[in-house]
């Protein structure tokens, strides 16, 4: 399932069918939206009409490194440690 890989989730082969069926059912329910005429309707991204909310370019205190790393599953020399990364972004 492509959407599982986009989600970085693994769906076991045994579950694929039931998952698919369930998602299909939900998605097909969503299809009632196709009956709504939205040809002249703009999308709403923000609940409230706000604009231009900015912060001044003034430094604030950072976390101590100890605190920054306090939830790290693995660390090394003040770095967060992960297994090898094969693909460059």
């Amino acid at each position, binding site marked *: 399932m492509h959407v599982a890989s986009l989600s970085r989730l693994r769906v076991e082969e045994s579950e694929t069918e039931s998952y698919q069926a369930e998602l299909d059912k939900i998605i097909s329910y969503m299809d009632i939206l196709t009956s709504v005429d939205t040809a002249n309707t703009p999308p709403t991204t923000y609940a409230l009409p706000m604009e231009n909310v900015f912060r001044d370019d003034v*430094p*604030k205190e950072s976390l101590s490194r100890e605190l920054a790393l306090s939830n790290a599953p693995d660390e090394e020399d003040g770095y967060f440690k992960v297994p090898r990364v094969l693909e460059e*972004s």
Partner: protein
Amino acid sequence: MQYEAVIGLEIHSELKTNTKIFCGCKTTFGAEQNTHVCPVCLGLPGVLPSVNKKVVEFAIKAGLATNCKINEYSKFDRKNYYYPDLPKNWQTSQYDLPIAEHGFVEILVDGEKKKIGLTRIHMEEDAGKLVHSGTNIKDSASSNVDYNRTGVPLIEIVSEPDMRSAAEARAYMEKIKAILEYIDVSNCRMEEGNLRADINVSLRPVGEEKLGTRTEMKNINSFKALEDAINYEIERQTEVLEDGGKIVQETRTWDPARGVTLSMRSKEDAHDYRYMPEPDLPPIVTSKEEIEAYRKSLPELPDARRARLESEYGLSEYDATIITSSRDMAEYFDGVVATGADAKQAANWIMGDLSKNLNADSIAIKDSPVEAKRLGEMIGLIEKGTISGKIAKQVFAEMWKNPDPPEKIVKDKGLVQITDTKAIEGIVDEVIAKNQKAVEDYKNGNKKAIGALVGQVMKASKGKANPQTVNQLLAKKLEE
């Protein structure tokens, strides 16, 4: 078949703000790993971004300085992809409504002017840094992540595929660098990665309109690498096509040590970035009046300055282009000329000895040990005839190490030009007496023999004799 290269650049420039784009952490380069981080840039659960006003100002200025249209309504979007240097696994960037669009800059290559189109400029956050523990990325068992750079503000400047050669691409990137320096929004220190380019290269038969398949090279951070990588890629693609092969659309990496581009591990599926509007950041709305105010606040830009140097000082287009290619150099030039020094001489010295010395010692022009004022004074000494152009080179070399005024150096080192005809006459007589062969040759019609004699006189005077006087005296005496 003749092929034509089609090149487009995506330039990422770090903006010189005090703090990151979405949080108050400092942006200072070179801090100890994971010390410029906070809940926001670490992407901890529950955090929200807040936009640094400076970033928007800088991006708008960059847009205006590159002849872009500023979008009155602009917004941020999430660009989703998984990578450990990206704590949220999305990059906050701009998708369909970037801050600036549809601009251009002018470049000059081999005396020809050309317009390079800008598709867009958008704001985004930089990612963190991966440090690989093994000897290279492929054989290291683990990687370490430093999030100091995460959230440092970037603008991405996307060009149209308007360039046709490595030289054009270089001129374009130099122009972008100059503009960003002029408007003072980026330090443009390429060695620190605050100006870097992703290059797209494709080939097509000359006359063909349709674009060929392109390859991409990411994170090129020197002009040399830019030219070398493009030239290599043009050659490589030409060979592939001439052998009847097909170009594979892929990302390649430039290996400067071997001077080749290499295919990176091919991706299983093309990225599906699933862009969506960033719901945590309200849109940015800029009125026409604000845009005009920003436009008025811009300093003189490289092209205007170049034109001014040409008309005001009579510099050649070539010289004026080089002088204005960096704001610091142009300012240095102004400093030299301000002393009353001849502009053409000033340009020659800046592009010649000064640049050579700066490059050799890896010093930025604004940190030059020879200040603009001093160079101006030295040029003044040449103009007054106190020193010769040749001696000036010696004086300049001394000035590189010695902060004294050139006048003092000339005096202390006894480098004042000998203009006293009597003194020079003595040396001329001596040289004539010692070089009878050359004198004979001259008298027998080999007029070029005078050159050797002039050289001898200059040598004997340790270069201090006024060369014009030497020439005149020699000619007069030999005719006697």
